[in-house]
């Protein structure tokens, strides 16, 4: 069988490496239980943790989290141990104001009251808690003595049943509204179920829950939900927000019940409105300071599976617990352990072996236009009298090299010369059908191509692949070079949107293909000869389909003009 996949020739022999010093201090931002645990675990391994929080105390009640409220003893032991730990520096009323440098050697500035001071750290963990926000306004309600937020009812229920006098105040019917304004999550649902259950069982009140989807995708929640129903808590599942009238202290709720199929009116004594978990108020500012991307809701991790569980677009900066996604303490502590693993890999025993050179910046060519600084998705580039690329921070995607207008940046393993030589070599081979050159991202298309080969799927005969570290490395020059070298068609295959390890590599590749298509049509070549598509590593079938489609198209178009001219 013809070899469809061409492996990149090892051009450099034994790579030279160097050992660089890694600072063993770690900054932990956020003094909630996840931050405390992280500092404690790091200190236990011999790192030094700097734990900062802009409030005046550590821990906090987090009464919304059952894992916190039911593990008070363990948590207070943890708090004692961290206060006593020599390897943990606790800075309260303190904010992170700036961060520069590279992983293993970040310079940070912290502000405590009016004083600003510097520290050096090797890595940063963001452990901000999520912010519970009442949705009363979204339900058109004013807070009142009988309109409570979920936090309010939890404070009431924190007292012993005999002390809290719900019934004594004449409260009998208590209605919870949850998940009717937006899709909630198991954390929100659990709070509602627990409060409703408690009121039903201990206070002799009737608890009724108006909900859309009961979110139970968490260990033990189905059982809790069942128990609450068995004790008499009523659940009405609605499609949309019920009509709620708040007239002084009179509350009236009207909705259509889809089980009974008629309109229902409730006049509760108390209405409890859900709280949604939003990003911490400091999250946006911190994302800017740290140079990390957020998701569409503002949580501190892009929505990209390659960053899971705790990574960000920037090496050495990790996000845990509710800083990245609202979660309970159990999951938050799972994140802590995963972050410790990452930090161990990064900082090790204070020394890291790295390739002596990953990327070369040509001093004479660099004009300090700083395009590379702007496009680097990993924040790996700084500058002095030319662009300086951190070997530790750089993930080797090559987006900078592709964008550099002076071609001043060369990846050691994927230099322009190497890739162009591969293009020429691959186009020198004989082929029966149309000659197709495919630039394959090593993370997706290249794997899919190999998989298609192993599974004996019949890809086009004239197919040649060139492996690139990221589709964002594919230069317009490579595409033009491929046509010059005799390709009838060129494909650039990238990862799907939101699946690029370098976030934007696929976007850059798509733009460059657009550019190159315009150039092709300017010189009178059919722009259909060039295409861009997205694919994943486990899609060999799609790899064959995409390349076959290109082959069919090229059969209709015939050999490229350049090849026809060369033949003539």
């Amino acid at each position, binding site marked *: 069988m013809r070899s469809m996949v061409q492996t990149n020739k090892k051009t450099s022999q034994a790579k030279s490496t160097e050992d660089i010093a890694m600072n063993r201090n770690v900054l932990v931002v956020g003094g909630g239980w996840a931050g405390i645990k992280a500092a404690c675990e790091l200190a*236990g391994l*011999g790192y030094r943790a700097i734990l900062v929080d802009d409030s005046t105390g550590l821990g906090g009640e987090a009464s919304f989290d059952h894992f916190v409220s039911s593990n008070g003893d363990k948590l207070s032991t943890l708090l004692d141990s961290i206060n006593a730990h020599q390897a943990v520096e606790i800075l309260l009323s303190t904010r992170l104001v700036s961060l520069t440098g590279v992983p293993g050697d970040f310079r940070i500035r912290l502000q405590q009251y009016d004083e600003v001071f510097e520290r050096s750290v090797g890595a940063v963990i963001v452990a901000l808690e999520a912010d519970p926000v009442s949705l009363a306004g979204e339900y058109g309600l004013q807070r009142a003595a009988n309109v409570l937020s979920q936090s309010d009812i939890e404070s009431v229920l924190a007292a012993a049943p005999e002390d809290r006098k719900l019934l004594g105040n004449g409260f009998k019917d208590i209605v919870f509204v949850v998940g009717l304004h937006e899709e909630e999550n198991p954390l929100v649902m659990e709070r509602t179920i627990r409060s409703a259950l408690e009121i039903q069982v201990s206070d002799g009140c009737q608890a009724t829950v108006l909900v859309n989807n009961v979110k139970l995708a968490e260990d033990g929640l189905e059982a809790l939900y*069942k128990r609450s129903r068995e004790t008499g808590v009523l659940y009405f599942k609605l499609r949309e927000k019920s009509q709620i009238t708040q007239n002084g202290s009179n509350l009236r709720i009207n909705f259509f019940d889809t089980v009974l199929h008629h309109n229902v009116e409730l006049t509760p004594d108390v209405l409890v409105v859900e709280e949604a978990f939003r990003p911490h108020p400091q999250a946006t500012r911190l994302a800017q300071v740290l140079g990390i991307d957020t998701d*569409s809701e503002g949580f501190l991790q892009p929505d990209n599976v390659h960053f899971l569980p705790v990574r960000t677009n920037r090496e050495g900066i990790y996000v845990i617990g509710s800083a990245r996604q609202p979660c309970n303490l159990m999951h938050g502590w*799972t994140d802590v352990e995963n972050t410790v693993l990452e930090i161990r890999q990064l900082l090790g*025993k204070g020394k890291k072996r790295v390739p002596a050179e990953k990327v070369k910046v040509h001093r004479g060519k660099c004009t300090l236009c700083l395009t590379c600084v702007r496009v680097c998705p990993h924040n790996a580039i700084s500058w002095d009298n030319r662009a300086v690329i951190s070997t530790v921070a750089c993930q080797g995607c090559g987006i900078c090299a592709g964008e550099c207008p002076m071609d001043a940046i060369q990846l050691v393993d994927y230099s322009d010369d190497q890739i162009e030589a591969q293009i020429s070599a691959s186009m020198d081979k004989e082929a029966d059908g149309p000659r197709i050159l495919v630039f394959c991202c090593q993370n997706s298309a290249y794997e899919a191509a190999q998989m298609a080969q*192993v599974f004996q799927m019949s890809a086009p005969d004239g197919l040649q692949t060139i492996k690139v570290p990221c589709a964002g490395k594919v230069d317009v020059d490579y595409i033009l070079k491929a046509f010059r070298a005799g390709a009838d068609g060129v494909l650039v295959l990238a990862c799907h949107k939101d699946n690029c390890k370098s976030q934007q590599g696929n976007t850059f590749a798509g733009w460059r293909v657009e550019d190159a298509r315009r150039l092709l049509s300017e010189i009178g070549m059919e722009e259909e000869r060039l295409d861009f598509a997205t694919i*994943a590593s486990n899609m060999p079938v799609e790899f064959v389909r995409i390349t076959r489609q290109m082959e069919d198209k090229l059969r209709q178009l015939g050999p490229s003009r350049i090849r026809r001219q060369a033949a003539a």
Partner: protein
Amino acid sequence: MSLNVEEKLPNPKAGSVLVIGGGIAGLTVAWELARLDVDVDLVEKSSFLGGYAIQFCCKAADECQKCGACSVEKRLLEVIQEPRITVHLKSQLKEISPNGRFSYTISHHPLCVDPQRCTNCGLCLEKCPVPGAIVRGYSKNNMPLYAVDEAKCLYFRDGSCRLCQKLCPEKAIDLDQEPHRISKEADAVVVASGFQAFDPVHRPRYGYGINRNLITALDLERMLREKGEVVRPSDNKVPEKIAFIQCVGSRDHQLRHGFCSQVCCGYAMRMAEALHYRHPEIEVAIFYMDLQNCGKNFSRFYETCKDHIRFVRFMPGDIFQGEEDQLVLCYANEQDGHAMRETFDLVVLSVGIMPGASNVGLADMLNINLDKHGFLASADSLDDTSTSQPGVFLAGTAQGPKDIADSMAQAGRAARKVAHHLRAIDGSNEQENFSG
């Protein structure tokens, strides 16, 4: 107290670890431990690594839908390239004595296919007279890519057929290999033995197995992975109407399955979106009780889905046979309660995550507990990797339902707990040496 990291990080030669199960959780524990310079024996009962998750398809539409299937592919590649991990395929734990160090015995069934010689030509699969007796892995990283299923192979039944062995041009197949046992020692054990998908035969009113166009979501995952498209099993045509039925086996108190499988809404919605992207003409409906979240910003994802998918809040109790191998679902219209009959070309059962078949045996051998549903119980309310036995840890769906991302995260935590345990026993050894 010393702050010297050198002293505190685990000694590279601290020990070796037994990981039971080669699914995504087991792969991740093994890989994380190897990154900590710990040697790992990874024991997998089937012929391939990757468990269920390696069979899953990419569900991307225009953009990635974050199902995580590609992460499994990546992790598998990392594991097979990692020299510290010794993989034992077609192997099962037979005995283990938890006495400080764990002495254990695993039984190896012969692979029959020599990975060094096999060139993946596929001739064995093509020529084998019994469907299913030669099976192929799902990923190029499943090596060897072909395996013999002893339960179906005629040679293992009565010795009557050796066709594959005779035909193999590379002489890579040897059916006469004997099963054997290996005894080893480990300093810690991680149970990552996974789950079993609910078998819809236990919900007889669906009639699974009668109409070929009634399939499980797992069947659909495999179909999309292998063919890249959806077809009706009865006629290989692209179906016009597809229904997903959620909570098949999960949240089913009649069957005493009082738990949510946590993954089915996510995979059903993602697959439905992938189907819509690939075949925009297909009508898809999802029948459900309560939609559970998946991934980040579920609200937005759900809104997008509503543009292409019909969501029906009703759980059909029966599935009836229609004409031309179609299937009929009966349900009540949510608005007026009227009974509806609707015909579909393909019905997909969103089967849930059930406790693994080996849980009882493993719990017994390792002297750890099962929870009331039959998953392996964790012993610490704040750490779901812990068990009642020192040195024994849990990862992945052996402990309870979870998706790929959560399995990987929990596996990372388990690896950390193992490292911690190794350091602790290493420290005590040092003390013993010191006092001796």
